[in-house]
């Protein structure tokens, strides 16, 4: 059973929670956050955040405790609907749980190549290739030429 470990360091538990926060998209295009192997990034960031870290850890402990109360095998043993209920309840009683989690989850999730590809971005760093952008509309430039100071 994994739920005896501290919630942030329990990868399976954290993955399952992250999958509730960002679940897989209905059409299968967007992956769930728990399937990308980014829980360690989130855990590491939470661990060093002196302000939000303790609040997130407290919220996750509440999730864990509520889950064990429902099923001794813990959160990962719950049905998807039960997982959602437990996380919603903890988010309600620990207002900074979600704020703290998504502060680190969103940057990690939206930097993942699979997610970038799914939202239509090239799955690479901006540098060195950079990006093309549209030139200035010549009609707009014509208007400016008429108004320009000589």
């Amino acid at each position: 059973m994994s739920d005896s470990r501290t919630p942030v360091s329990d990868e399976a538990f954290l993955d399952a929670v992250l999958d509730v926060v960002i679940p897989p998209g209905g059409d299968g295009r967007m992956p769930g956050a728990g399937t990308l192997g980014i829980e360690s990034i989130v855990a590491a960031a939470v661990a060093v955040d002196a302000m939000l870290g303790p609040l997130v850890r407290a919220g996750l402990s509440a999730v864990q405790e509520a889950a064990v109360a429902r099923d001794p095998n813990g959160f990962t043993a719950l049905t998807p609907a039960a997982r959602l209920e437990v996380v919603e309840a903890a988010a309600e009683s620990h207002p900074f749980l979600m704020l703290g989690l998504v502060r680190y989850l969103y940057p990690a999730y939206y930097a993942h190549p699979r997610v970038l590809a799914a939202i239509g971005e090239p799955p690479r760093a901006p540098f060195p290739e950079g990006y093309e952008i549209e030139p200035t509309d010549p009609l707009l430039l014509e208007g400016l030429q008429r108004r320009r100071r000589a």
Partner: protein
Amino acid sequence: MPNEPVGVLIIGAGASGAAFAWSIADIGTSVLCLEQGPWMKQKDYPTNGLAFEARGMGEFSPNPNVRQLPADYPVNETETPISPLMFNAVGGSTILWAAHFPRFTPGDFRVKTQDGVADDWPIDYETLEPFFAINDRMMGVSGLAGDPAYPYHEPPLPPLPLGRLGNTLARGFEKLGWHWWPSDSAILSREYEGRAGCINLGPCTTGCAQGAKASTDITYWIAAQRKGVQVRTGCRVREITVRADGTADGVLYYDEEGQLQEQKAEVVVVACNGIGTPRLLLNSRSPQHPNGLANSSGLVGKNLMHHPYAMITGIFEEPLQGRRGPIGCSIWSHQFYGSDPSRGFVRGYSFEAVRGLGPAQTALLGMMQGRIPWGAGHHDAYARLYDRTATLLAITEDLPEETNTVTLDPELKDSHGIPAPKVTYRLSENSRKMLAHGVERAKEALTAAGAVDTIVDPLMRGAGWHLMGTARMGTDPKTSVVNERGQAHDARNLFIIDGSIFVTAGGVNPTSTIQALALYVADSIKKNVESVFEQP
């Protein structure tokens, strides 16, 4: 071994320190700059990797209290609605800046004459004009000549492309018949003087991996070093020391190893920005200057001005490709610049268009605004926002008030035990009205451009990018800290060259004017060498 005395000692290697150093090097004396931060490397900037947004919120955050790097000092920001932002390295805050490069307008130097508020500057646009032009060439400025909001000037490089987002916004302004113009940008639209042109990486505000954005480490400092100027990094100046007659004679600083060092100089130049400069002056107490150096007027640290910002984001139905291209540089508008009594406030503001947010920033903004939930609805809500936002920033003119201050915090200290600055700032009623006006007009412009909805931040907290007024210039030593040439009234061989010496703030970003002023001060020293260097 004691450090060799130098002719000119500059404290701070940011926007102003760099420009000044390059110019003053012509004087033929030794020039040294002490900088508390390191040299940056383009290969370390976040856009080299996928996690660029996460790093931009951490070690490359513009807020020193978030970064907490060895070069940073803490700032007490509990008594202000606007967080002071900066970067501490060779290049200073230009490492992170957006490089939106408007000049102050001629009217910005004559606020008292025009509107009966604040003060006129002791110098004018015409005096600074040649220095604006030199600065544009040194930084490498892209833009379109002929903006009717300004006296005619020709940026050395053609304007940056507006991209789909910029075109969309510009059409909105066109529809309303409002002024707009492609921004002057300190970003290369093509190769220039050995630097490569912009490749539209997006978040210029985490450092430019391409080197197309003009941070002063890759512009002025290269040229200044070629002229023999030395930069000593990792050196935090604790205080400026004085001779018996009260003139400056050098500094005490902590070197990279944390050892206290003494550096003597004939002329001391302070370029630590609108927060760092008053902090250093106030910390330089002596029997000759019991209230801090150059502070006989009591005005060091007073009259702090930012530009209070409102952020108005339009949501569009079509993708705008907005994440691509320099984030802060596309178009500006001076439609509401200057006073109009019918608006119910004095002075005015400009609009700066901001390109779209990155993938993670979109999710975080959506969360903060209650538009992107976690859980089941996340992906659909995200898809409605991502790449469909364009933002107008209303940059309002802040008027000087003595109650807006930088003081020494009685408790908070930096890693060397030097008192940290405390910022106390209250938003004026005039600024409040101006911001509200800006929000409504921005909504109009965005709607005209095709936005179907808007998100408003009526006063951005994370917008203390511009730090001005805390050692103001003037002709009267009772009501100013330095004279019209940046020279301290109380110590003739002490000069201040950063935004601290601004008399008023204008309604546009300040750095073009800060640097023009630094070049002007250097030039006037060059023309008056004898009087400045004359021994007591």
